[in-house]
Each structure stands twice: as structure tokens, then as C-alpha cells.
């Protein structure tokens, strides 16, 4: 076999390429690959957005500030005393703090956040924090501890992805 034989063989074999009817008219659309990538990324973005939306209302500012306003505060700016409202927890049972909330507070304190005892306002539980900066309120570490490590509605062995569902309906699941 010499190079000419090889060339001829390749040319002959290439001629046996028979595309499907209509293949030549199916012109690839611009941006097709981009769309594929967008589809691949979108579930992650959607999941992150959903988690942020569900977790954000857990800690609310009591003075009528919107959630976005609170999120807009950098930890360094929160220097004034604040009141942290804890949403979604049961009212006091015979004057006592509900067990899940108590667990949460204990956990936070164990992790170095000296939270004061919450008080029942009639709409929910709230805590008055004299020096949020010293407490570390709003820092990444605080958020991780409050929302993940000490998420009081997290069941034993529960995963983070179960958290949103549990947070929305804490009371019916307490018995589990």
C-alpha cells in the first residue's frame, strides 16, 4: 500500500457518506450551545434563589424594614442596638420558650454567640441585641451557624435541602 492507494481509498470511502434527507437544510441555530449551558446552570441558580427566599424571612427586623433592606446592611454598618425577630415558632407554652427555640439558642450559644433570651411579642419571638457588631450579627459565620448548624427545625440527621420545607411548617413536624 502506498500513499496514493490510501488517498484513493479515503476518497472512495468518503463518498459513501449519505446524510439523512433534510440534514443539509437543518441549519444549526446560533446560540444553541449557549442555550444548553444556560439550561445546565439554571437549576443551580433556581435552587440558590429558592433557598435564599425561604431562609431570608427567618430573621426579620422588627421596625418595619423590608427583608431586602436588612440584607443590604453590611455587618460593619449594624452598630446600633437591634431587635431580632424569630419567625415561625410556637408561642410560649405555659410561659416557657418552646423547646425547638430553646435548642436553637443553646446551639448558638455553644458556638460563641451570646444571644439574650427571646421575648414573646404577640406576633413572634424577638431578641434585643445591644451590640450587634460584637455579637457578629450578619456575618457569614453567623449566618452559617444560625441557618445551617443551629437550624432548630432541622431534624436529627436531616439535610440542608430539607430545611426550607421544615421551616415553613415547624410545628406539625416537631413530634417527629
Amino acid at each position, binding site marked *: 500500500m502506498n500513499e496514493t492507494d490510501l488517498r484513493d481509498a479515503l476518497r472512495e470511502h468518503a463518498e459513501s*457518506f449519505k*446524510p*439523512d434527507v433534510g*440534514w443539509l437544510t437543518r*441549519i*444549526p441555530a446560533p446560540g444553541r*450551545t449557549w442555550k444548553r449551558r444556560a439550561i445546565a446552570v439554571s437549576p443551580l441558580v433556581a435552587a440558590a434563589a429558592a433557598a435564599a427566599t425561604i431562609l431570608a424571612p427567618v430573621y426579620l427586623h422588627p421596625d418595619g424594614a423590608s427583608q431586602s433592606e436588612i440584607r443590604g446592611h453590611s455587618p460593619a454598618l449594624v452598630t446600633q442596638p437591634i431587635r431580632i425577630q424569630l419567625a415561625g415558632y410556637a408561642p410560649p407554652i405555659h410561659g416557657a420558650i418552646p423547646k425547638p427555640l430553646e435548642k436553637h439558642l443553646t446551639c448558638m450559644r455553644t458556638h460563641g454567640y451570646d444571644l439574650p433570651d427571646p421575648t414573646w411579642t404577640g406576633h413572634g419571638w424577638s431578641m434585643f441585641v445591644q451590640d450587634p457588631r460584637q455579637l457578629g450579627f450578619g456575618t457569614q459565620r453567623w449566618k452559617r451557624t444560625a441557618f445551617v448548624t443551629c437550624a432548630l427545625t432541622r431534624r436529627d440527621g436531616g439535610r440542608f435541602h430539607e430545611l426550607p420545607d421544615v421551616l415553613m411548617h415547624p410545628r406539625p413536624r416537631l413530634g417527629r
Partner: protein
Amino acid sequence: MTSSVQEDAVPARVTSSSNASAIAELYLHHAEYFGRVAFLLTDSNEQAQDIVQDAFARLAGRFHRIRDPMAMRAYVRKTIVNLAINHYRKRETERSYLRSSATMPAPAAYEVDVESRRDIIQALRSLTPRQRAAVVLRYYEDLPEAEIAQLLHCPLGTVKSTLSRALSALRITLDEGEANE
């Protein structure tokens, strides 16, 4: 030469027309030719069509960055070679799995019936993906070795040795086929 005809067929007004129509024009001019190249690389009509479609779709995504029509051809060719090599590797992995399960004969067991062009194509299947790509680019597309080196991301010397080994492997396979008869 097939390739030189195709080079001349590059539409001169590709850069002046809109993206979609330019892609369409380019596709209509070159899809069949590149389909043949992909077919030689993959040995499959369906895979060849998919690879060409994919290559042009990728070109469409980056169209605004490429202004030179010749660069577009080079981009498509490069994409096709890369996709074909990847496809070939995947197929080899599947084959090796099947081989280990003893459900399919090894490629070395391909029988070469008679000394003909068909046998050469059969022997081509015994080459590695890179060797096969180098052979197709050199002997079907008639690309200079330097350009093949760019396409395959390797030094010129490597292309030369790859081609040399590929031809030796083809000859050995054909000789073995003759000896078995």
C-alpha cells in the same frame, strides 16, 4: 483536489452578512464536505451528521469573534476533529468493556478479505484516534503537516512520527490480512 475546491468555495461575503445568514451560507457550502471528513473519522453516518451540526452550532455561538472566513473553516475543522476523537475514545471505552465481557470480538480480529481500498479502510479502524485523524487530515484533506500539528495541538515532529507509525500500522494490518488468507 477536493479540499482546494472547497477552499475556493468559501463565500466572500460571509463577513458582511448577518450572523444567521452567514452561518446558513457557510453550512450549505461546507456541511457535506465536513460531513465526509467526520464520516472518515467516525465511520458512522449518524455520528458524522451530529458532529457537523454540533461544530456549526458552536461556530454560531462564537461567530462574532471570528471575522476571517478561512478561520471559520479552520474552527469548524478543529471542532470536528476534536469531537470525532472524543467520540472515538468513548467508543473504544465501550468496546474495551464489551471485550472484557467477551461479547464482541476485538478490533484486532477484523478480517481483511482482499487487498483493496476496502481493506485499507478496514485497516484504518485499527489506528488510534489521533493516528486516524492525522491520516484523514493529511491524505484526505491534504493539509500540510504544520497545520495538522496546530489542529492536534502537538509539535510538527509528533505529527510526522504519528503519520509514519500510522502508515506502518496500516501496512502491518494489511500484511497480516494477506497472510491469514
